[in-house]
């Protein structure tokens, strides 16, 4: 028989264990990322000279290329470069900006090759945009998707169900940039309901902030809302055929209590898991949305970094994105342990 364990301890040990695993995971991810961006191109025939010459204007001289190699630290062996990179994240880094040593406090993700600026502040400055975009869209799609999914499941086979599931299927089948462009063309140019879409900080003008983000929110949320409606519907249908729902009905509970307290509670648990992971993965969707709507967030920063072949920026943003994913997974796991008593051990 089950011995009763003191309540808080398992959750805390669980969190601590997961935290340690997370740190370890991040280190492994950073190593692989570093290897792929610095080692793989070399294996593919890229030379540091070729890399360095990308950051020089017309007609580079060998001396100039060599100077750049040194400046960017490309002349050191790869493990040393990786060591520097890790040290920079933990301890910060002194960078030779010319006149003086510029100090980049931790977490210093190195210096951009192209812009010769520390990567971290540039990424941080893009965060408000991406977070605004992500948060608004996430709320929209979670509320919208779950509501539609629940109604569809309960009204299975009705016109509403068929229609909303049809739209949902279209939603998951449309490329996000395509919907974005159509939305922009129709509602920003043809009928200027939301003209001149650009990011305005929330602190500066909350109303304008929201107005300008409505289109990107809807476009980004549309894809996910469709997905969540389908998932919620399937989950709800499955849950509502569970034995414990029958038990709840047999108890004589009102249907509303049966649906929301017993059905939705259980159906939402996997949705919450997926939601957490999607939030972590959102940078992918944000890239396409930000490019389409010219929003200066992390997504556009990523594209910019890639266009400039700016390895430190690419490395930084990849790791930041991985960090989000790992943290989101951690939060989901902890949340799961809180929500589902069976998981706690």
């Amino acid at each position, binding site marked *: 028989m089950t011995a009763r364990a003191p309540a808080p301890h398992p959750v805390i040990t669980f969190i601590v264990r997961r935290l340690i695993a997370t740190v370890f*995971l991040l280190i492994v991810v950073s190593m692989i990322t570093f290897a*792929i961006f610095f080692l793989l*191109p070399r294996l593919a025939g*890229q030379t540091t000279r070729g890399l360095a010459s990308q950051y020089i204007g017309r007609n580079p001289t060998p001396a100039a290329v060599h100077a750049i190699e040194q400046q960017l630290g490309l002349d050191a062996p790869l493990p040393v470069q990786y060591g520097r990179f890790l040290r920079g994240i933990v301890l910060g880094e002194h960078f030779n900006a010319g006149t003086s040593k510029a100090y980049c406090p931790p977490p210093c993700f190195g210096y951009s090759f192209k812009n010769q600026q520390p990567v971290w502040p540039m990424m941080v400055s893009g965060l408000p945009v991406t977070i605004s975009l992500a948060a608004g869209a996430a709320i929209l799609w979670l509320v919208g998707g779950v509501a539609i999914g629940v109604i569809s499941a309960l009204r299975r086979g009705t016109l509403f169900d068929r229609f909303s599931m049809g739209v949902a299927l279209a939603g998951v089948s*449309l490329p996000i940039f*395509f919907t974005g462009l159509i939305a922009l063309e129709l509602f920003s140019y043809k009928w200027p309901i939301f003209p001149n879409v650009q990011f305005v900080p929330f602190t500066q003008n909350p109303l304008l902030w929201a107005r300008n983000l409505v289109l990107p929110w809807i476009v980004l949320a549309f894809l996910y809302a469709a997905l969540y409606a389908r998932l919620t519907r399937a989950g709800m249908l499955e849950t509502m055929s569970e034995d414990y729902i029958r038990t709840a009905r047999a108890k004589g509970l009102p249907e509303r209590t049966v649906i929301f307290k017993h059905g939705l509670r259980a159906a939402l648990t996997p949705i919450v898991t997926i939601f957490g992971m999607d939030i972590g993965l959102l940078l992918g969707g944000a890239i396409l949305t930000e490019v389409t709507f010219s929003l200066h967030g992390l997504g556009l920063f*990523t594209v910019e970094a890639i266009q400039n072949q700016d390895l430190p920026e690419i490395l930084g943003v990849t790791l930041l994105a991985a960090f989000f994913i790992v943290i989101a997974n951690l939060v989901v796991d902890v949340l799961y342990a809180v929500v589902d008593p069976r998981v706690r051990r």
Partner: protein
Amino acid sequence: MAAPLDVAPSGDVAPEAMLSGISAKAIEGRSLGQIAWLRLRRDKVAMAGGAVVIFLILVAIFGPFLVQNPDIYHANLINPTLSRPNGPFGGISVAHPFGVEPVTGRDVLSRIVNGARVSLLIAFLATALAVSIGVVMGIIAGYVGGWVDGVIARSMDVFLAFPLLVFAIALVGVIPSSAFGLSGNSLRIGLLVFVIGFFAWPYMGRIIRGQTLSLREREFVDAARSIGARGPYILFRELLPNLVAPILVYSTLLIPTNILFEAALSYLGVGIIPPTPSWGGMISDAVNSGFYSIDPMYMIIPGLAIFITVMAFNLFGDGLRDALDPRSSR
């Protein structure tokens, strides 16, 4: 087969599940495949999706031989001052049923058809790679268990921690234009397949691992083991056939994801190298040249191509899942 009064739970759960249990019995004697096919055939939507999928595959294989050269420019069909196609709807005519591209006058139909080949090729290869790695790793993890399972499960975590899209565009961006003995589009296709396949396998791996774990405990595996079957025999003769259904279903659902993914990469400029046509690349051209607002067909046609393809695969995949797994209620 005679059996003691069976205690299958199906008779006591909700009527719906009960009924499927009953009808399964009614057509007992047929193989799972036949049953699934019967169910699938009744699902008209899924069948329509399947028909479109087959049509698309045929188009991708044979289409390029039937249409004109997608790289030929038709300057005479272009307004020399405004660079846009003469005639309405992007210059739609009998010779060019989908119209022609602005600036170049290239035939849109032939580019769509050739683009289908590229999109489907990448999607299929990437799916094949992801599924192969995922299935092998999943079976090994699930069957062998122990520390092997631990290592594989951890590495799945690591791979899932990579932001796929960010990673893909970054990686394609930093690899030189010729590498690993490949160059041009063969290198690009190889890279895309590698990136998608290599970072998407854990999704498949997790599903297969879970299935294997539950199958491992089932009687027929015990039976095989008891008559002295070895690990590999059990893996491939006993387990794999039972995993065909989930593999098939998730492959069908992974393909459209990969089509969208390839389109996104091409849209961001790291997909297929011009002038080889690809759907995402066509949208990208329409957007970056700015022609999409005066010649909407330029963007809408490839957009619809992506939409229809992905939708068809999704419909078919959903239907296949319902047919193979009656428990999923949809």
